[in-house]
């Protein structure tokens, strides 16, 4: 299945969009997970601190209790050495626990109860120690045997374990969340990476396929071009040969036609000379006869009127045919003429052409306006002079007699390194029915009040095409005609292409 340019662009765009989304998703997920990690990390730190404080509090109370029991059992003050320190530490850690857990929902009741228990426990220990120091051992022992100290410690232990367990749960949850985050990030990255790989792979495959197809197409086009160029070259050669043959044929035909025509004209003179001899003979015969002879009179009429008239027709027809043959030969010669590119200022060409018809232009009260905005051309000067000379000559010849002639020549550059020249007149114009044939050979239109053979525009068309250009015409009958000539700016390009 081949890939069209449109589907290639669409699929590549879609793949890039998916890849972008995947990348965006990875970035967003990374950011979100990072934020979550920060929150959980803070929670873990708080839980760790709360746990540490609870453990330290429990250890401090237990240390104080050990001191108390050692002193109660032995009465030795050395057991009380860590007692005050333990109590101080217990109270400090109790404050820490209160501070760390103050914001936790539901912890306030536990903290209040634990605070009361620790304070009661410390007070109970203080009381027994005081009794022992006062040597009131029995009272101290009795107080001890109430088990109140144990009961307080047992209950405090419930809260110690509760705090530690809650902190452990928070630590476990925090670590679990961090692991889940890492796992989530890993999976998302893997999935995103796979998506990106798939997208890149898909895009690469699409590009590869498209590139291969382009290369194949290029090769195919190359092959076709090579064949086409070869065929064009062959056809061009064939056409050139055919053209040469046609031109040679035209030349030969024209030459061959002219030869009998010369004979006809020559023999017409011979006939005319003979006719003069015959007339002299008739005159001598009539003088010899001395009287009117009807036969001689009829011969005299033929020789004096009918024969000169016939000879005149023959000569005018021969002249007409000669001019036609000359026109054909002119066209043929133009077709065979070698073009010579040179730097040409078109304005000079037009000015020169205008000067050539200045006399007729003056007689017509005409005026030529020139408006040029083109660079220097590289062209065949003679061909250009023939084109614009003919067009200007036509403008003068076919002017409208009821108004002064106005001719505008406008030239400008157009795309494709070409120029466009317009020759517009306010002449008699061309009827619509004649417009298609004005460029045909020997065709004339409109009033035939000017001498001509109908080869001017045909010649112009031939020359323009030889230069690689086009000529077109617009006209309004009675208002004027505009010829538009489009030519390459440099004839050399055309010639090198043709070569």
């Amino acid at each position: 299945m081949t890939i069209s340019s449109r589907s290639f662009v669409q699929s590549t765009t879609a793949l890039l969009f998916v890849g972008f989304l995947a990348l965006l998703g990875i970035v967003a997920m990374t950011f979100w997970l990072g934020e979550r990690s920060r929150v959980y990390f803070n929670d873990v730190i708080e839980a760790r601190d709360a746990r540490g404080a609870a453990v330290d509090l429990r250890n401090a109370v237990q240390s104080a209790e050990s001191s108390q029991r050692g002193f109660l059992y032995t009465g030795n003050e050395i057991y009380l050495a860590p007692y005050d320190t333990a109590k101080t530490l217990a109270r400090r850690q109790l404050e820490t626990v209160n501070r760390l857990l103050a914001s936790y929902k539901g912890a306030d009741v536990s903290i209040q109860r634990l605070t009361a228990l620790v304070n009661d426990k410390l007070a109970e220990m203080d009381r027994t120690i005081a009794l022992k120091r006062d040597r009131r051992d029995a009272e101290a022992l009795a107080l001890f045997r109430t088990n109140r100290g144990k009961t307080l410690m047992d209950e405090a232990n419930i809260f110690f374990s509760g705090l530690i367990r809650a902190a452990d749960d928070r630590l476990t949850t925090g670590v679990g969340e961090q692991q889940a985050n890492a796992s989530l990030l890993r999976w998302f990255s893997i999935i995103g990476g796979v998506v990106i790989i798939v997208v890149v792979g898909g895009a690469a495959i699409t590009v590869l396929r498209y590139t291969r197809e382009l290369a194949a197409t290029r090769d195919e086009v190359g092959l076709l071009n090579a064949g086409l160029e070869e065929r064009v070259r062959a056809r061009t050669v064939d056409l050139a040969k055919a053209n040469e043959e046609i031109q040679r044929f035209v030349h030969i035909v024209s030459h061959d036609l002219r030869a009998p025509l010369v004979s006809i004209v020559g023999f017409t003179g011979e006939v005319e000379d003979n006719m003069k001899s015959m007339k002299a003979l008739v005159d001598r015969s009539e003088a010899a006869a001395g009287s009117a002879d009807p036969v001689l009179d009829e011969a005299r009429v033929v020789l004096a009127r009918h024969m000169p008239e016939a000879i005149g027709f023959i000569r005018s027809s021969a002249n007409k045919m000669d001019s036609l043959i000359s026109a054909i030969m002119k066209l043929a010669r133009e077709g065979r003429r070698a073009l010579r590119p040179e730097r040409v200022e078109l304005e000079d060409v037009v000015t020169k052409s205008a000067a050539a018809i200045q006399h007729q232009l003056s007689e017509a009260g005409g005026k030529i306006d020139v408006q040029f905005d083109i660079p220097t051309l590289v062209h065949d000067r003679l061909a250009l002079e023939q084109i614009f000379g003919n067009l200007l000559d036509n403008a003068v010849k076919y002017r409208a007699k009821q108004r002064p002639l106005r001719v505008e020549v406008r030239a400008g550059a157009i795309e494709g390194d070409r120029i466009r020249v317009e020759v517009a007149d306010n002449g008699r114009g061309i009827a619509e029915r004649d417009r298609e044939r004005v460029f045909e050979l020997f065709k004339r239109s409109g009033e035939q009040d000017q001498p001509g053979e109908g080869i001017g525009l045909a010649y112009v068309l031939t020359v323009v095409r030889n230069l690689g250009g086009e000529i077109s015409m617009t006209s309004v009958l009675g208002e004027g005609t505009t010829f538009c000539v489009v030519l390459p700016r440099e004839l050399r390009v055309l010639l090198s292409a043709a070569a």
Partner: protein
Amino acid sequence: MRSIRLAVPLAAILLANGPADSMAQNGPPGITTPTVFAPFDAGAPRCTPPADLQKVLAFAQDNQREFMQGVHHGLALAARKRGLEYRQLLADSDDAKQLEQVRGLAAAKAGGVVASPVNAANLAAGLQQVMWGGGYVSTVVAPPATSLLNAPQYLTGKVLGDAAAAYIKGRLRGKAKVVLLTQDSLEFLTPRFVALRDSLKDIPGVNIVADISPNPVNKDGGFATMRTVLLAHSDIDVVLGADTVVLGALAALRAAGKARPDQFLGGIDGEPEAVAEIKKGGTPYKISISLASPVFGYAMGQHAADWLEGKSIPQAMDILPTALTVANIGQYEADLADPASVYEDGRRRNSYLRMYGNICYDTRDQYVNFPWSSERK
């Protein structure tokens, strides 16, 4: 059914525990130093039967607690079975009255006396009079006695602890927050809780979040203690202790909305309310450890008759704890109602009773006069 409560009666007895006062004696002091008895030999040689004693079996009963009523039930059945005249003497928790009742029995030459002492120390003299007169004396826990009955506290706790451990491993996947409701006021019960801790200590996932003695040791105390525990620990999986306090804990769990069918609440004593919870099924209360007082009462009656016939009887006897669960409670109730069939079936009897030492009329000076326990190290 008859509920069997042992902790409190045994506690009351043991508070006044100790050898009988030798200064006031008119006969041998018995065995006063802790002694380990060999297992009872049922094939021991016969002795001379007491000649001048009445075939009377009397129960000097401290009060009409259900546990002691079970003893009374067993004794009555055995006396009827063996053709003894049975007398139930209620002391109404009056130790002096009880002493008078026992002295009266000694004076009347009663052949057998079973006592649940109101005050063991006070009653010892009266019981010794019976023994010195050749009569059979059996007491519930406290010496002196010809044949002394005790309950193995460690084993009792171990049965409960092992059941809890099995449940934790099986149903709770080895992880549990455990509350131990102890009884600091009765030191002799300490082995129960040692056994509970021993059963749980090797399960890594067990976390004993509370090890505390409710005060008072009753349902209200259990309720208050559990409420305190719930302040610090929102989720509790296992609660162990005496039935009364565990029932209080259950009430606290329910009040807090923290009771779950998969919890394991287990108690000791076979309290009727605990048994009712177990029989419901699907409640947190899964087990109660009970001591079958009709069974050992029946055995005591049989031993009294054997004594009067000159047979050798055990010097001491353990009433073994039975774990009541929804699965076995029907059979257990049937056994309590008909202890005779249990006694006559050796296998079933051995599941309730374990007997130690031998004594008969001819060796009656070797009566037990120390706080015996089969678990004493």
